[in-house]
């Protein structure tokens, strides 16, 4: 078990999300930073899709009720275990009864805490993710509160070594000013000047940004296209509402919508956008679908590498069979 001692303003159970229920109107949901949650799982020896805690907006503390190998990643935080500093993307061993505290999230937006064995909540529609707008999934379909105790899964047989650290070059460049996008979604609707505006301006993340979408502030795109007959969207789709200011759809965005979509953020770069705070700025750069898929395959192979290195760091590892 793990017990929430002092809940931060936002904390939920998440994993990779729901990939087979969009036809019922269920969004993918899941972690906002799909890379970081998989990376911290890999670091502690879990399957990549295990459930972990997604933590945002401020400090708080949790208590481990059993011995636990854990890791944090994603946003950068000042965090401690029983008073000792916890390094990011590094395994830390906690003894039953020890308390983990986040004092402050210093940069980025979503912090992930993975425990060996993962968070054990019921699987609904193929996922343990919390979908807050629908009040289901995760822990009772809601944010965690102080006093909640949540179950952990069985510990993996091969635990990575204490202090195992994942190399920074296997992580996304969260400080990158560039977020890659692909076109082709509605090339017929947007002219060259709209594209120039979108790719040659800095856009600032508005305070109107949450798990559903990030409103962007900057030059408006000229064409006011109104509403089209609804069709599917996805996390990362950049839609242009009547005011011409782009909205990037995020994890919990509805499965369908009627605003015209000009482009889609490359899945490999979506974590970089997700971790941008209100006020932070980005610039979009166009790449091809093939380049975008190549980048995503590279991320998948980086995660595989982290998993392999983590397992091999284990004192119990007997080498390749």
């Amino acid at each position, binding site marked *: 078990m793990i017990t929430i001692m002092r809940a931060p303003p936002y904390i939920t159970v998440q994993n990779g999300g729901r990939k087979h229920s969009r036809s019922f109107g269920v969004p993918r949901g899941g972690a906002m930073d799909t890379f970081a949650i998989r990376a911290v799982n890999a670091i502690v020896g879990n399957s990549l899709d295990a459930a972990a805690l997604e933590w945002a907006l401020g400090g708080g503390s949790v208590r481990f009720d059993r011995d636990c190998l854990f890791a944090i990643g994603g946003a950068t935080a000042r965090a401690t275990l029983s008073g000792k500093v916890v390094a990011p993307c590094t395994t830390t061993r906690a003894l039953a009864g020890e308390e983990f505290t986040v004092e402050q999230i210093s940069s980025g937006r979503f912090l992930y805490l993975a425990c060996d064995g993962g968070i054990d909540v019921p699987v609904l529609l193929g996922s343990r993710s919390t979908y807050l707008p*629908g009040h289901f999934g995760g822990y009772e379909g809601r944010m965690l509160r102080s006093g909640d105790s949540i179950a952990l899964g069985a510990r993996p047989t091969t635990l990575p070594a204490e202090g195992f650290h994942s190399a920074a070059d296997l992580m996304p460049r969260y400080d990158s000013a560039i977020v890659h996008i692909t076109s082709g979604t509605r090339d017929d609707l947007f002219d060259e000047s709209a594209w120039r505006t979108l790719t040659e301006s800095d856009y600032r993340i508005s305070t109107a940004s949450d798990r559903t979408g990030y409103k962007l502030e900057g030059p408006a795109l000229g064409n006011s296209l109104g509403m089209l*007959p609804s*069709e599917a969207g996805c996390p990362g789709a950049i839609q242009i509402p009547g005011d011409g200011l782009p909205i990037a759809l995020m994890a919990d965005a509805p499965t369908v919508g009627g605003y015209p979509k000009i482009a889609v953020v490359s899945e490999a770069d979506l974590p970089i956008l997700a971790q941008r705070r209100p006020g932070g700025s980005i610039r979009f750069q166009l790449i091809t679908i*093939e380049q975008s*898929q190549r980048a995503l*395959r590279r991320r998948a192979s980086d995660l595989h590498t982290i998993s392999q290195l983590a397992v091999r760091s284990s004192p119990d590892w007997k080498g390749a069979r």
Partner: protein
Amino acid sequence: MTAAPLRARPLGDSAVTIVLGAERSAELLRRVHSAARALEAAKIPHVEDIVPAYLALTVFYDPRHASYEEISASLLAACDRATRLSAAPRSREHRIPVRYDGMDLEAVASATGLSVKDVIARHSARAYTVDLLGFVPGFAYLSELDPSLHLPRRAQPRPRIAAGSVAIAAAQTAVYPLDTPGGWHIIGSTQTVMFDPTRDAPALLAPGDRVRFERVP
């Protein structure tokens, strides 16, 4: 009527939208639904989800194992076969009991110039078709609302509409499956569970299904 040629366009690096037509119509919607069903039955490798809409359907796939060219070619071929066969779509009929006790019932009556009794009679008189699912899980957009009941959405959406609320807006009607914000006019309520993530079929209604509302006291 000959169908327009199918087109594929990418929705990012992990989805492809197959466009079946340019103008909304009941006939096009039927083709979209039968193409979606045919693609489901075809079990094309690396396909994760199929989302039908008004003019197009969108297929989500795993880009680690399939390129855009490969997947769009298989999908276009499968859709083309499906739309030429034009098999009768499998559609179910639902009867949803409704208590017409909605908080906007009187306002709808006065805005449409009908009596409350007429609003109820017209809403429960016809069978509706499920156009598509979206907005929130299990929310089915039902079309062919009686033209005398067409009203624009409320100027101020409400922060919370109770699950089971039966509502109308423009040419459509729907049942709110979950407690959510909403801008439609609430005319009644039902005990029928529209969405339950623990069920095998979580959403009661599927695209193409037919729905009748039955007045209960």
